[in-house]
């Protein structure tokens, strides 16, 4: 059982080591693809086991919780690991076409797999300090990937990204120290009960500290600046994996900590989250409306969409959490895909700045189809995945008479449509300003396959979630039930409590 939990962390690390040692040859990229495939296999097995047996926990080093480090997977963790693996497979294939040999020699594949390892570790650990460690693994790997290539705007974006994320990291570390000082434990399941004995006033303050630290990671208002400052600068595979996964780790951490540990004064903490959710949605989507570069638009939309997920957490009803979980999964697939598509647009049309490209609809209809699916899913058009995600959250808000927040969520959806059609109208419909006709056939057949297969795969997934949402909704329901009643989680980690 414990190996089932350990494997999703071990596999990408082993892949990273092997890919680094073979970085001078093309073997490295195939090792990366193979490693991602094994990770996918491991995470499917993990998911199956969690579906069958409920929450599972493994004590690393064989030391009983709460003394050693516990890895634990409930449905949320399992699905996050699974979706991470899916993105990893997609991006590692895409990288064959997107990442040049210079970047490979500098260890792109190693950094990429370490990033995946950090993300998976963050999703699967049941120990707060260990969560910090995985955050750092992820963070430092993202630093490296962000500036790999060394173009000046990457450095500029990198400075802002690094500076603000370091502040968040240090806040998180400080918070862990303080929480340990109050409870004497680091195990998250143990914390869930240990916080009851702590000074509740102090606990609320520390909760806010964690909220801010995770808020930076999740890129919520008013802490998101690093994201639009940097996400449009690195290689496309990198920004795809960032866009899909990194902020979600912050959302995951919020979701985990604010259902498991910090649920003592939800009237206060979750009201703050509600405000944050509303402001994040609005500010993010307006930010997107102001942009004219495909990747910048998409970056601001990440911010806006994070607001939806926080909304689910803030409302804290079963349906709202269902919506948040559904949104989380849907958004990773869709957003990573849109960045991958932007990469293709860059390659064949010569950029991502909307005023300088065009004509993709006419001469690259396949790409147009592949764009329409995630773009209109993001905008919440049925029957694509994003519609159900939004539907669940709006319904959850209306169910608790949250008229204003429901109105905001809907209006933001409209502005999302606006941005997506802006990309569509300018990059796809409008003729190319230089009169060229961008064609997919201008790519080598290897590059074409490497880029389009992952895009098509993710698009198919989006459609499947949209057309057959029932299993996903059921899953999200089960997952929300586990989050709202953490008894099973705590029992799995600590055993039966007296």
């Amino acid at each position, binding site marked *: 059982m414990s190996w089932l939990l350990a494997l999703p962390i071990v596999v990408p690390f082993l892949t990273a080591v092997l890919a680094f040692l073979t970085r001078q040859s093309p073997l490295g990229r195939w090792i990366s693809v193979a490693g991602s495939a094994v990770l996918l296999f491991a995470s499917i097995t993990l998911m199956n086991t969690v579906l069958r047996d409920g929450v599972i926990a493994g004590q690393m080093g064989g030391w009983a919780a709460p003394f050693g480090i516990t890895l634990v997977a409930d449905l949320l963790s399992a699905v996050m690991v699974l979706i991470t693996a899916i993105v990893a497979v997609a991006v590692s294939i895409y990288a064959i076409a997107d990442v040049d040999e210079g970047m490979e020699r500098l260890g792109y594949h190693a950094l990429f797999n370490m990033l995946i390892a950090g993300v998976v570790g963050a999703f699967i650990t049941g120990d707060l*300090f260990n969560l910090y*460690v995985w955050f*750092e693994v992820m*963070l*430092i790997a993202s*630093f*490296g990937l962000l*500036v790999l290539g*060394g173009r*000046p*705007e*990457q*450095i*500029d*974006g*990198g*400075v*802002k990204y*690094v*500076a603000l994320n*370091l*502040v968040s*990291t*240090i806040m998180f*570390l*400080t918070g*862990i*120290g*303080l929480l*340990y*000082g109050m409870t004497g434990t680091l195990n998250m399941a143990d914390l869930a009960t240990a916080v009851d004995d702590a000074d509740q006033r102090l606990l609320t303050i520390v909760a806010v500290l964690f909220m801010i630290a995770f808020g930076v990671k999740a890129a919520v208002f008013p802490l998101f600046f690093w994201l*639009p*400052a*940097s996400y*449009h*600068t690195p290689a496309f595979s990198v920004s795809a994996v960032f866009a899909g996964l990194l902020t979600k780790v912050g959302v995951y951490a919020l979701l985990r900590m604010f259902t498991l540990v910090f649920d003592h004064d939800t009237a206060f903490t979750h009201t703050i989250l509600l405000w944050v959710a509303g402001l994040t949605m609005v500010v993010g989507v307006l930010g997107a409306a*102001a*942009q*004219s*570069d495909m990747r910048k638009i998409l970056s601001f939309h990440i911010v806006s969409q994070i607001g939806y997920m926080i909304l689910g957490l803030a409302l804290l009803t079963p349906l709202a959490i269902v919506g948040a979980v559904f949104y989380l999964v849907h958004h990773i697939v869709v957003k990573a895909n849109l960045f991958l598509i932007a990469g293709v647009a860059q390659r064949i049309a010569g950029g991502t700045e909307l005023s300088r490209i065009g004509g993709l609809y006419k001469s690259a209809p396949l790409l147009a189809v592949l764009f329409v699916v995630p773009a209109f899913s993001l905008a919440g058009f049925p029957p694509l995945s994003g519609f159900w995600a939004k539907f669940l959250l709006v319904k959850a808000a209306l169910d608790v008479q949250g008229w204003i927040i429901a109105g905001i969520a809907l209006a933001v959806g409209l502005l999302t449509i606006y941005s997506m059609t802006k990309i569509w109208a300018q990059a796809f419909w409008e003729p190319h300003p230089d009169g060229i006709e961008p064609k997919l056939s201008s790519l080598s057949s290897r590059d074409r396959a490497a880029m389009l297969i992952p895009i098509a795969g993710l698009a198919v997934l989006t459609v499947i979630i949209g057309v057959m949402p029932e299993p996903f909704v059921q899953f999200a329901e089960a997952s929300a039930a586990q989050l709202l009643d953490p008894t099973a989680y705590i029992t799995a980690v600590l055993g039966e409590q007296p």
Partner: protein
Amino acid sequence: MEFLFAITVGVMVSAAVYLMLSNNLLRFIFGLVLISNAANLTIFVSGRLTDGAPPLIPEGADAPLVDVANALPQALVLTAIVIGFGLFAFAIVLVFRAWTTLNSLTPDDMRLAEPEEAQK
């Protein structure tokens, strides 16, 4: 005595924040070093302070014979120091790189990723 060092932490954090806000990457680095140290010290102080009793088990004994210092925060701080060093090393190289590429150490003047004309 935890009180004393809690105040020390506060002063370090204040100085660090001010330095980080100074719009100069070198001062930012100074602030970063200070605030990392402050965070480590926070963990250490949170685990309570014990003077003169390292958490070692003497030969022949199965457990420490006296009340020794709390070992767990020490291990955490050790990990945090090393991680902090890793982050710092990258940050200083990045600052160096920013200087050689952008020829500036004032981050507010770095407008390549978010150019001003695009926002007008």
